[in-house]
C-alpha cells in the first residue's frame, strides 16, 4: 500500500530527467582522480570527501575510505576500509582516531584484521586477512603517481591484494588494492631508462596505476609483477579466487537475506504462491518479479522470443501470456516492454533464428513481425521498445567516461566531454524505461512483461529499477539486498562473464559495466529523493567495491545453478554478512521512515543532522529520566512535586 502512495512521486521524479536532472548530473563532481592515489602534495595520503552529487567516483573507492575516516565512530566499528578494495590507503591520520588496540574487543580486532584495516602504521607490512599470505615483496619500487610524480616505496603482493608503502616521503603514502580490481597488467617500454622496467595496471574501477622497478638482470627471480599477474588472474592460472580461501565468519550470514517464498508472501499476504503463478511450472521463464498489492498487476521478465524470420510460434508460450493477463482482473491489456531499440530487435530476430542451443528460452507469441490479432483473442498485447543499447555500447561509453575522469579532468570542457561519453544519456534512457514500466503498472494497473535479448542485462536493470520505484520495501537496506539477490543474482545476471573475475582476458566482448550502471541509476534516484532511501551513498559504493574485490562470494559465478554447484554459500562469505553486521555505516540518517535511531551519515552536511539527532536522543533521555524521577517522587511524596528537583542543566543546542 505504501508503494501505491509513493509511486507517483517517484515516477515524476525519475521522469524529470530533462535539464533538471541533467543539471544534477552536470553538477556532479567529477570522480576525483586523486581518489585513487590520493596523494597529497606534501606526500600525505589524504582521502577526499565525497562531495555532493557525484557518483562516478564510485569506481574509485576512495569515497569509502573517507567516509570512514570522518566518522568518529570509526573506532567502534570495524573500519570500513573496505574493503580493501579501496585502494587508497589509510593515512596515518585516520588511524589516530582509533583507540589503542586494547580498547577493542577481540571480536572487533579480528574483524578489523579481516577488513585489512591496519592501525599500526609503523609496520611496513600490510595487515593481512585470514588466509591471506604475502607472496612476494620488492623494495625500491617506484609508483608513478599522476598527481605527485614518482614515489619510491616497497611493494607487497599477497594472494588478495597489492600493497605499496612509500618510503621516501613523509607521511607514507599507501596503496592498498585488491587484486580483483585489476583488469590487465601491461609491461611498458623496453626498460631502457636506467635499467628500469615499467608496468601499468589498468583497473576496473577507473584507475590506471604505473609502477617501475630495477630490472634484475641475470637474476632468475621473476619480477614481482609476474607474481602479481598470477594472483590477479587466478582463474586463468587454474587457481581459486580468494573468496574461497577467505575464512571470515560473520555473526549473521548474509546468504539468507533473500528467500523467494518469504518475498512472495510479503507481496501477497495470505495467498499461496502455487495458485496464481501456475505458469512457473511451465519452465521458469517468463518469471514473475512483482505483484501490485492492490491491482494485482504484475511485472514479469523473460528473454527475447526465438521466433526466427518466419515467425515461429509457440502455443505454450501464448498460454503463458494469456495467464499473465488473466491473473490481473483489472486490465485487459498486457504490455510487453522490449528494452532494445526496435532496429536491433529486428536484426536479432533474424540472427537468432538459427540458434537453438538455448532450449530454455521461451517463445513469445508476440514477436515483432506477427500481426497482433494472430495471437490473442483479446488482441490486447502491446509491444513497446525502450531504446536501450546493448552491453557493447555501454562498455564503450564507460571506457570514454573513464578516460575523461582519470587522472585529470579538463575543467573548462568538463560538461561537453561528459556529454560526449553518452553515459548519462544511457542512464537516462534506462531510468526512463523503468519509469514507463512503473507507470503502466501503477497508473495503468496493467501487467507488464519486460525482456531484452537475453533477459539478464537490460531486463534486470529495468525490472529492478521499476520495482525500486514501485515498492518502498526495496528502498530499505534489507530490501535492496533482496532486490539484488532476486533480480540480479537468482535471475542469472552473468556476473562472472560481465566482470571477468580473476580472468586475464580483459578484452572479452562479454564484459560490460551493466551492474555498475544499475547502481548509478539507483544513485541518481537517491539524489532526487534524498529521504526515500534507507541506505546511503556509501552503501552503493561498497557494493561496487566488492563487485570487483573477489573478497566475498556474492557476485561470483554466472547463475544460481553455478553458485549452488560451487557451494558458494558454504565456502565463501556473503557481502551482505559484512554489511548487515554494521548497518549504521550504510544508513541514511535522513530516511524518513526510520527516524528513531541515531545514525551515522556520510556526507558533511549531515554532520549537522547528526548533531540534531544526537541532541534529540539526549533530550529524550533526559525527559525520560525526569519522568521516572517524577513518578517515583510522586509515589513517595506527592505533596511537593518538583521543588527539590534540580533543574536540568540548560541544554545548548544550536538550533
Amino acid at each position, binding site marked *: 500500500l505504501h508503494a501505491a502512495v509513493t509511486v507517483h512521486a517517484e*515516477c515524476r521524479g525519475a521522469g524529470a530527467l530533462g535539464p533538471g536532472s541533467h543539471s544534477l548530473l552536470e*553538477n556532479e563532481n567529477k570522480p576525483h582522480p586523486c581518489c585513487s592515489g*590520493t596523494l597529497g602534495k606534501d606526500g600525505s595520503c589524504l582521502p577526499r570527501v565525497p562531495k555532493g552529487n557525484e557518483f562516478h567516483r564510485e569506481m574509485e573507492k576512495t569515497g569509502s575510505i573517507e567516509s570512514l575516516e570522518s566518522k568518529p565512530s570509526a573506532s567502534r566499528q570495524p573500519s570500513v576500509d573496505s574493503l580493501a578494495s579501496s585502494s587508497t590507503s589509510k593515512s596515518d591520520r585516520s588511524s589516530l582516531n582509533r583507540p589503542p588496540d586494547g580498547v577493542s574487543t577481540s571480536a572487533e580486532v579480528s574483524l578489523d584484521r579481516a577488513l585489512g584495516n591496519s592501525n599500526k602504521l609503523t609496520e611496513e607490512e600490510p595487515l593481512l586477512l585470514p588466509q591471506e599470505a604475502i607472496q612476494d615483496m620488492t623494495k625500491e619500487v617506484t609508483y608513478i603517481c599522476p598527481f*605527485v610524480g614518482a614515489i619510491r616505496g616497497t611493494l607487497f603482493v599477497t594472494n588478495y591484494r597489492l600493497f605499496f608503502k612509500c618510503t621516501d616521503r613523509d607521511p607514507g603514502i599507501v596503496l592498498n588494492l585488491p587484486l580483483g580490481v585489476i583488469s590487465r597488467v601491461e609491461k611498458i617500454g623496453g626498460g631502457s631508462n636506467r635499467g628500469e622496467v615499467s608496468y601499468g595496471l589498468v583497473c576496473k574501477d577507473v584507475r590506471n596505476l604505473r609502477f617501475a622497478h630495477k630490472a634484475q638482470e641475470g637474476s632468475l627471480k621473476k619480477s614481482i609483477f609476474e607474481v602479481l599477474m598470477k594472483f590477479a588472474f587466478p582463474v586463468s592460472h587454474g587457481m581459486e579466487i580468494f573468496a574461497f580461501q577467505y575464512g571470515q565468519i560473520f555473526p549473521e550470514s548474509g546468504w539468507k537475506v533473500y528467500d523467494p517464498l518469504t518475498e512472495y508472501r510479503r507481496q501477497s499476504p495470505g495467498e499461496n504462491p502455487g495458485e496464481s503463478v501456475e505458469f512457473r511450472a511451465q519452465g521458469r521463464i517468463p518469471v514473475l518479479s512483482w505483484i501490485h498489492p492492490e491491482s494485482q498487476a504484475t511485472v514479469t521478465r523473460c528473454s527475447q522470443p526465438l521466433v526466427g524470420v518466419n515467425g515461429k510460434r509457440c502455443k505454450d508460450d501464448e498460454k503463458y501470456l494469456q495467464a499473465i493477463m488473466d491473473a490481473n482482473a483489472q486490465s485487459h491489456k498486457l504490455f510487453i516492454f522490449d528494452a532494445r531499440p526496435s532496429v536491433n530487435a529486428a536484426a536479432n530476430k533474424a540472427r537468432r533464428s538459427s540458434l537453438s542451443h538455448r532450449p530454455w528460452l521461451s517463445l513469445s507469441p508476440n514477436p515483432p513481425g506477427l500481426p497482433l490479432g494472430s495471437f490473442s483473442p483479446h488482441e490486447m498485447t502491446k509491444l513497446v521498445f525502450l*531504446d536501450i543499447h546493448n552491453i557493447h555500447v555501454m562498455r564503450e561509453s564507460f571506457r570514454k567516461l573513464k578516460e575523461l575522469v582519470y587522472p585529470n*579532468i579538463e*575543467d573548462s570542457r568538463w560538461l561537453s566531454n561528459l556529454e560526449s561519453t553518452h553515459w548519462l544519456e544511457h542512464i537516462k534512457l534506462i531510468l526512463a524505461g523503468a519509469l514507463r514500466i512503473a507507470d503502466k503498472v501503477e497508473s495503468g494497473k496493467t501487467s507488464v512483461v519486460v525482456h531484452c535479448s537475453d533477459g539478464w542485462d537490460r531486463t534486470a536493470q529495468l525490472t529492478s529499477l521499476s520495482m525500486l520505484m514501485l515498492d518502498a520495501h526495496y528502498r530499505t537496506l534489507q530490501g535492496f539486498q533482496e532486490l539484488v539477490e532476486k533480480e540480479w543474482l537468482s535471475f542469472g545476471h552473468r556476473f562472472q562473464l560481465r566482470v571477468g573475475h580473476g580472468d586475464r582476458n580483459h578484452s572479452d566482448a562479454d564484459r560490460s559495466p551493466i551492474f555498475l550502471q544499475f547502481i548509478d541509476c539507483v544513485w541518481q534516484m537517491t539524489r532526487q529523493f534524498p529521504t526515500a532511501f534507507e541506505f546511503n551513498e556509501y552503501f552503493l559504493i561498497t557494493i561496487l567495491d566488492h563487485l570487483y574485490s573477489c573478497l566475498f562470494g556474492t557476485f561470483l559465478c554466472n547463475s544460481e545453478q553455478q553458485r549452488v554447484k560451487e557451494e558458494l554459500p558454504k565456502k565463501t562469505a556473503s557481502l551482505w554478512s559484512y554489511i548487515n553486521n554494521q548497518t549504521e555505516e550504510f544508513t541514511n540518517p535522513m530516511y524518513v521512515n526510520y527516524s528513531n535511531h541515531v545514525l551515522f551519515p556520510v556526507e558533511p552536511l549531515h554532520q549537522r543532522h547528526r548533531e540534531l539527532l544526537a541532541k534529540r536522543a539526549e*533530550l529524550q533521555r533526559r*525527559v525520560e529520566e525526569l519522568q521516572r524521577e517524577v513518578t517515583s517522587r510522586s509515589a513517595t511524596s506527592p505533596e511537593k512535586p518538583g521543588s527539590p528537583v534540580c533543574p536540568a542543566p540548560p541544554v545548548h543546542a544550536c538550533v
Partner: protein
Amino acid sequence: MLSLGSAGGKSTKPSFVSYVTPEEINITDIDASRREKHPNLLPGEVVFCSASPILKSSQEDASQRGISGTLFCTNFRISFITDEVSSEEVAVLFKNKLYGENDIPLTFVDLIYAGYDEKKKLITRGQVKNKYPPKIIIHCKDLRVFQFSLTFAKEEEARKIFQGIVHHSLEPKSLKCIFAFSYCENTSSSPEIQRKQRTVMFNTAADWTEEMMRTKGNCKLVTDNENFGISQKLAQFFIVPSFVSEEDLPKCQGRGIPIWCWTHHSGCALFKTASLPLTEDDSESQALKSYMERMLNAVAQNHLYSVKTEELSETLPSIQDIQQSYNKFKQFFLIDGTTEFWLSDVKWFSSLENSGWLDIIRQCLHKSVEIVECLEKENTNVLIMEEEGSDLCCVISSLVQLMLDPYYRTLTGFQSLVQKEWVAGGHNFLDRCNHLHHKEKELQSPVFLLFLECVWQLLQQHGPAFQFTETYLTVLSDSVHVAVFSTFLFSSPFQRVTTMKAGSPQTQRGPLNFPTVWDWSLQFNCKAQDLFTNPLYSESPKQNKAMRRPFHAKHQRQLSLPNTTYKPSPKKGFFKEETENLKKMLRGKRISRWMQSTEFIQASTREFYESWSRRPLDYHGLILPCLDGPAIRLWMQRYLRWIPEVQIFGGGPVALLNKLADLLGEVQELRAQLDLQACHTDLTHQRAVSLPRTSARPTNAFPFASSRTWGLRPTIPTCLLQRLMITGNLANADDEVTEAFADVV
C-alpha cells in the same frame, strides 16, 4: 494616453480616469465583474489600460489550453487576473506582497515576442504600429515566461494593451518614471524601521569608523566628499590608507584613490580603485605616474611595505563579455513549452558549457582565491583596479571578504557587505540593470547577479558556513529588478543622495524615503522569511571547535594536482625576484603584480587551496571554493524553478528540509517537555515546526513554482521523443504504441 512622466505626479490616488478613453470608462463601469477583479494596487500604482478576455496559456504544455482573464498594465506591472474562480485557494507559502504569481513588474520584462501561429518575432521598441499580434510572449528577468493570447479581446482593447505593455516596458524613460518615486510618495515614511534592522548602510561616517574598528584597520576616514567635492562616483565617506596626502585626494576626480575595503587580521588590507585615464600628453602622464606612485606607496606603507596590484580587466572578462555570456546562458531556461524543453535537453551539457557563464563564475572565484592567498598567506596589501572601479572590483572584493570574514556570512553581515561594496561602492545599478531601457546596451551587464552566482557556489560547497540560504539569494537576485527599492536604483552615490534629497518637486514633501531591499517585510511575511535562514548554519564558533574533529580527516580532500611544475615566466618574473630581495630590508616599495604565466598562478592557487583543505575545516574561518569543473554547478533553484519538467515531486532538497524541520520541531518539543517536567506544570506545549504541512507535495522548485497545475503523471524522455512530442503525454502513449507496432509490421 500612455503619457510618460506623469504617472506618479498627476494624482496620488489610484484611478483610471486620466489614462483611459471615455469608451473604456464605460466598459469598465458596465462590466462590474471585471472591476472586482481589479488587481490589488500598491500605493501610488495606477492602471494604464486593461483588456479582456485574455487567454493565458499555461507554460506547462504547448497545447492551446489556457486560463481566461483580464490583463492590466499599470505603472508598476503587467498583471493578469483570472476570471476563473480559483477553486483551490491554496495558501501560497511563499507569496511576494508586491507582485503575485501572474504579475510581471515592468522592470522584470526582458524581452517581448509577438507570437504568430508557428513562429515568434522579437519586438523592439519604436516598431509598434497599430497592429497587434495574436499572441504576446513575455520573457522575464526572473526567468518566467508568459504567453497571453489577445485574439478574443476587443480589438481596441487588445491594441491598447499591447501598445501599453510594449511602451512601458521597452521604451526609454526617465528616472522619475520609475515606480519607486510614485510608491514612496504614497507611503508614509518610516525611517525608524531601518534602524531596527542591523544592516549597516555605510552612509554615515560612523558606519565606516565602526567597520574599520571591527576589522582593526589603521587607515583614515575621508569626510571631504560629503558634498561630492572630490568625486561624484565615490561615496560620501570612504577610507584610504593613512599615508595618502590630503592634497592628492581631489586630483583625479577620485580615480586612483585606493579605497579601503577590508583589513586582514595580520594588518594587511584590501583596496580597490578606478584606473587612471591614459593620456598622450607626456608631462601629464608623468604627473599621473608619480601620482600613482604616491598612491601605491601609501598602500604599501599600510603594512610591511608591500603591495600587489591587480588590473582586473587584464585577466577577467569584460562586462560586455559577461552580458553576452549570460544572454546565451539564460536562453536555456526561458522555455516556451514542453517541446522546446525536450529539444534543449539533447545538448544540454554542451550548451551550458558553450555559453561560458559557468566558466566566468569560475574565473571570478579563482581570482578571488588568488587575492585571498595574498592576504592570508603572504600578508601583502592588495590593490585591485578596474576602469570604473565599481564592477568586477565589487565582485572580487566582496567575494574575498566573504571567504575571509565569517561576519559577512551571516544574514545581516552579508547585507552590510552589499551595502559597503556595491551600494556605497558605487556600482552603477541603474545602467547595469538597464532600468530605464536605455539604448546604450553596452552598459548593461548582470555583474551583481554574477556575484550572487559566485556566492551561491560557495554556499553549496560550504552550506553550514552561511546563515542565509539559496532561497535568500534567489529572492535577492529577483529583487534587483523590483523598482521599489533604493538599493538597486541608482547609478552612483551622488545620484542616490541628490535624488533622494531633492525629493519630489510636485508634492514638496522633503526628502524622499525609499525603502531598501533589506526591509524584507515589504515583500514577504515572517513565515516566508524563515526560509531565508539556514537551519544548518553552525552558529557558535565555540561549539564548532568541538565538532571540528570529525571534519578533520574528512576535509582533507584533494584537488587534482597540477601536472606542471612552477615555472615563472622569464620575461615578467624579474619583478618578483626583485621584490624578494627587498623584502623587509629597505623602506622601499615592494610592488609586484601577477605577472607570471597563468600556469604558475594556477599551480600556486592550487597549492594554496590544497594546503587549506588539509587543515581542519572551520566554518568560522577561511573558506575557499573548489574550482574543479564538476564543482562549479548550475544554480538549479534560480534557473529551473519555473520549468515543470524538472520538478521532482516529493524529492529534491525540500525533502531534506522537511525532514530537518521535523527534527528541529522534535528537539524543540523535547526541550519544552524538559522545561515542563522540571517546572512540573501541566501546560500543554505547542509544537514548533518551521515548515507548514500542506497536502500538496512540494517539489524541488520549492518555494517558487506552485505545483497545483500539475497532474501526477510522469513525463518521460526517451528516444521516442519525437512521437511523444506529437502525442503530448504518456496518457496518449497507448495509441502510439500501436502505431509503433504497425510500423514494425
